């Protein structure tokens, strides 16, 4: 079952089309990475899912209910963590969670208990000072706590790690992984290592459309070619290598960096065979030879070209 389904969604700001006929679905139980460049429209899409922005066209369904702009009915299934969560600075974390609980309509006795559970989950159980004095990382953690207060079916996080230091980032990712047993997580990011670390599914947003979508393995399999890195110890060795008849056809699609050359091909086995032939004929000896695993980054760069 899909927790979130987006169909033919479009949104423009003035003459600029940000989202252009976007289709996407998030299956229940997944950690879904929503990848795109800065300004690609990730936040716009998420805000439309939350009913905070009005789509020009298209439909959004959360847990089989249609999202209506300006109304908050479907938000009962969703926990939302904005990129920079802002709270009422004069409150303490328990006071803020109490306000959220009262707004949602959770009974008072349950708010206290659930609040304490969540604050200890995000590592803020000892924080009694006002939120105004919190660091960005602490606010991000409190943001997760407030988003989980309703035990939502879908947690939407907008670039939760972008502004954090490596320690803060790891903590947030660990929390997201921990809650994924009970909550489907959709998180937008442009940090691809975060996606590789915790996501099982991802979608690439480019020019307002989903360019690639699927499990991480499926996405990596989409990569059209493999790459082989060969490194020599001297420039003249590389030059000689490039002049070989068997290598020449591969040079056109290669990348060079100092004494390294990266060869791309759809048939890596054949390339390797010709390389070994060249090495045995010429006596050239590379210092390094490595088949490069397709990474999300290389795929991402390919998608946004």
């Amino acid at each position, binding site marked *: 079952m899909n927790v979130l389904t987006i169909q033919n969604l479009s949104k423009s700001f003035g003459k600029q089309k940000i989202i252009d006929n976007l289709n996407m679905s998030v299956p229940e139980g997944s950690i879904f990475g929503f990848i795109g460049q800065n300004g690609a429209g990730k936040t716009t899409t998420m805000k439309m899912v939350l009913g905070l*922005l*009005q789509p020009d066209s298209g439909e959004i369904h959360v847990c089989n209910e249609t999202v209506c702009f300006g109304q908050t009915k479907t938000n009962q299934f969703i926990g939302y963590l904005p990129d920079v969560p802002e709270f009422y600075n004069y409150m303490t974390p328990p006071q803020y969670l109490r*306000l*959220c609980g009262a*707004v949602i309509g959770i009974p008072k006795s349950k708010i206290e208990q659930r609040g304490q559970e969540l604050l200890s989950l995000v590592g803020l159980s000892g924080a009694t000072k006002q939120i105004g004095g919190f660091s960005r990382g602490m606010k991000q953690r409190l943001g997760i706590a407030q988003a989980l207060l309703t035990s939502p079916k879908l947690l939407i996080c907008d670039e939760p790690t972008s502004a954090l230091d490596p320690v803060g980032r790891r903590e947030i990712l660990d929390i997201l992984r921990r809650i994924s047993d009970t909550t489907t997580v959709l998180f937008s990011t442009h940090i691809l290592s975060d996606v590789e670390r915790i996501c099982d599914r991802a979608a690439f947003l480019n020019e307002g459309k989903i360019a690639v979508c699927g499990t991480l393995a499926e996405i990596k399999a989409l990569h059209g070619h493999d790459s082989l890195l060969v490194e020599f110890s001297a420039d003249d060795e590389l030059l000689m290598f490039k002049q070989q008849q068997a290598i020449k056809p591969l040079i056109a699609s290669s990348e060079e960096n100092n004494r390294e050359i990266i060869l791309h091909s759809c048939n890596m086995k054949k390339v390797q065979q010709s390389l070994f032939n060249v090495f045995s004929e010429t006596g050239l000896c590379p210092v390094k030879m490595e088949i490069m695993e397709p990474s999300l980054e290389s795929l991402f760069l390919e998608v946004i070209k």
Partner: protein
Amino acid sequence: MSGYPAFVKKEFIENIKNHRFLIMFAVFLVFGMMSAFLAKFTPEILSALAADMEMNSEPVALDAWKQFYKNISGVGFSAFIILYGSCLSGEYSKGTLVLMVTKGLSRKAIILAKYTVAAVLMTISYWVSYAFTYGYTGVLWVDTKLPNAALAALALWVVGFMYLSILMIGCVLFRQTFTSILFTGGIAAVISLLGIIEPFAKFSPFNLTTQNIDLISGIAAPSDFILPTLISVIISIMGLLIAIKLFNTKEL
């Protein structure tokens, strides 16, 4: 309307923590305390400062009320509008409302809670100010009886709600505090200008701010205030409904 009581509570706490209530209360209190004294002692102060100036008439209790209405309808309500002009813009710019709305807090509840708290705090400030003016006037002019003083005050109080409703529309429409205040001032100016035109003059809500003294002194009758009061109440309710309607379609 889930969340309305919780948001009302939050608004009360916020207004106390950010000193908005304190400032408004202080402004109204100062005018409440000063009106009678200024009326009583201004002639003496002026004669002391300029020895050759002669005062032709003795100050009367009505002068104290003149001071009260002039100050409250002018500076008092201006302070009220300026202080509450930022009641939504602050939340827009910080993004604090987004978390509340995504929690399921209805947009109607947000507007109504903000209106309720601003109205209650204005009411407290206003009537405390009235009580001080009434008390000091009673002390300084012992034998004077002004039967319609409370009715006149009631009329001006209604105008406070009307200003607040117009301000709410401004706050929903514009993201900047200054523009919201300017909008309120503009609409108030349009209403006051309409009051000059003859067919509207009789029931202009601005009569409630300009004819209070006439009511106290007996020049105007209480019945003259019925239509303007009714129109003020209608504008207040309509304004609030429009603000809610607009806020429902506001992109946060």
